[in-house]
């Protein structure tokens, strides 16, 4: 079972609603709003996505997905894809925290005149060789 997405009944993490739409409860501790929005964006061609805070459990969102085509089978598939997409978006967010700064630095260095990564080292005296690059193997 996918963590953070609650099963409403024992067999399925997805709740069918009477109007043919699908409801998903998303744990707000596990998935950020940003990840949720990014995942939702990808489905806005096939369906309408309604995002609410759960009426009784405020640690959850309630996502209602209604297919643009009136095909119930379609919507169940979409719910599965949506859950997987949400996981990937959350992963992307975590990765971005790990390397977002590095990307900024790389792009800045790409267009900078000087050396942003090793400003001190760039102009060292090769005769004095403070880094000991010319030292013979001991």
């Amino acid at each position, binding site marked *: 079972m996918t963590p953070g997405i609650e099963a409403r009944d024992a067999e399925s993490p997805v709740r069918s609603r009477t109007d043919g739409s699908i409801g998903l409860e998303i744990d707000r501790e596990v998935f950020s709003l940003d990840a949720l929005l990014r995942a939702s964006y990808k489905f*806005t061609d096939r369906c309408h996505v309604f995002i609410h805070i759960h009426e009784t459990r405020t640690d959850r969102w309630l996502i209602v997905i209604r297919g643009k085509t009136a095909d119930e089978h379609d919507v169940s598939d979409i719910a599965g894809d949506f859950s997987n997409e949400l996981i990937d978006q959350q*992963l992307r967010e975590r990765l971005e925290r790990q*390397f977002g700064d590095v990307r900024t630095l790389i*792009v800045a260095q790409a267009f900078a005149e000087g050396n942003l990564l*090793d400003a001190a080292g760039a102009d060292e005296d090769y005769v004095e060789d403070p880094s000991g690059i010319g030292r013979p193997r001991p």
Partner: protein
Amino acid sequence: MKLVFHRPDHFRPTNRTSTYRPLPFRFMRWPGGEVLLTNDVGEFIFLPTDAFSAFAEQRLTNTCAVYAELKAKHFLHDSASTVPLQLLATKYRTKKSFLEGFTSLHMFVVTLRCDHSCPYCQVSRVNEDRTRFDMSIETADRSIELMFQSPSSALKVEFQGGESLLNFDLIKWIVNRVRERNKTEGRDIQFVVATNLAPLTDEILAFCADHGIYLSTSLDGPEFLHNRNRPRPGGNSHQVAIANLAKARTALGHDRVSALMTTTEASLRYPKEIIDEYVARGFDSIFLRALSPYGFAVRSRMAFRYETVQFVDFYNAGLDHIIELNRRGTPIIEVYTQLLLQKMLTPFATGYVDLQSPTGAGIAAVVYNYDGDVYASDEARMLAEMGDTSFRLGNVHQDSYASIFGGARLKAIVEGSCLETMPGCSECAFAPYCGADPVLNWATQGDPIGHRPTSAFCAKQMAVFRRLFDLLRNGDAFTRELLVRWATQVDTREAVA
């Protein structure tokens, strides 16, 4: 000196737990239990799903097979060294080097008059009063003035229309003026005339030969298709074009005349026939251009999307046919494929202004219209002819270089066309290979940023990238080598208009 040689572990950590950090990358789940990873400079690797999970969750050990590949391709780093970042920065700079020199392609719309009435063109005026729709000398002079304020060391002057040769006098004027001015400027100047070839005369050819001018014409396919797409009085556009093509090649040299096709609904059924026509007419390359949405303003979004799906079929069939022709000894290149493969397989930038991030519109290429209005692209000009001036940057008679090329309008266009910050694109693994086209987004979706899930352009790009990766990985040896040679044995610094 004692001879002591250290073992490998003296040079790397011996413990099996990795202390690596990921370097910036994007990923896309791939059919068959794999994940495609790409970095900002277009290097890529396919990982099995479990290896990807291990990598993303910091569980990868430095002795496992993919670790070395990820490290060498700069997807992870595991030391305090800044060298990987310096290499990435250099590579990034190389990939964005199309920005150097700023605007290098300058299109002069010398007239709107034309003897053809192609349905996909929105600008031509047939048999109109020549003073109303011809560029004046004053406008030409002002445009040349602006052009030379571009810092680019190479300038490509492209004459457009209507049918540009109908105002050949002005073309001569501009060529001479530019060459005169260039005596002190010392830029590398290239001239191209876009023409349907119908008005070609010996005098025109002699002038082109004298000044090293290239010709670029339209060939939409075999006669029945070409004439259907490109009506003119007498209905003989194809016959005239072919006859004058031969004359032009004789006068200027075979390689000085190139051809472009425009793909229409009608074209979609005839990929092989169109390609065979190009081969028969002695061309060694063809650009399977996507359907143009312009001129079909009344079509619905969904209809355009459907046609785009059909275009993918057209493209696939066309590419297969081209590969087969090559296999049988006929060297013909598909230019769009070549362009995408350059982005995927080489460290170099490409000069195709319609597939860049930020868009090349305005910053790499600019259009000076017959009336002095300046547009970010030819498509922007077409939109204006249909009543939409959203991408008009100014006027050569009223506005300075600074306000046209450094003004708020162009800045907004550029800021909104960096894939790295656009929804749906910023995380897409194909981002390093793709580009933004705000004019296209505006025309088809009503918003320069565009809406990715319903974007026909995005759907087309994704389908093409998937196909190319499939061919590169699963194609036979001939196909794989052919594609690599297309990508890598070309001067990638040439601007492709």
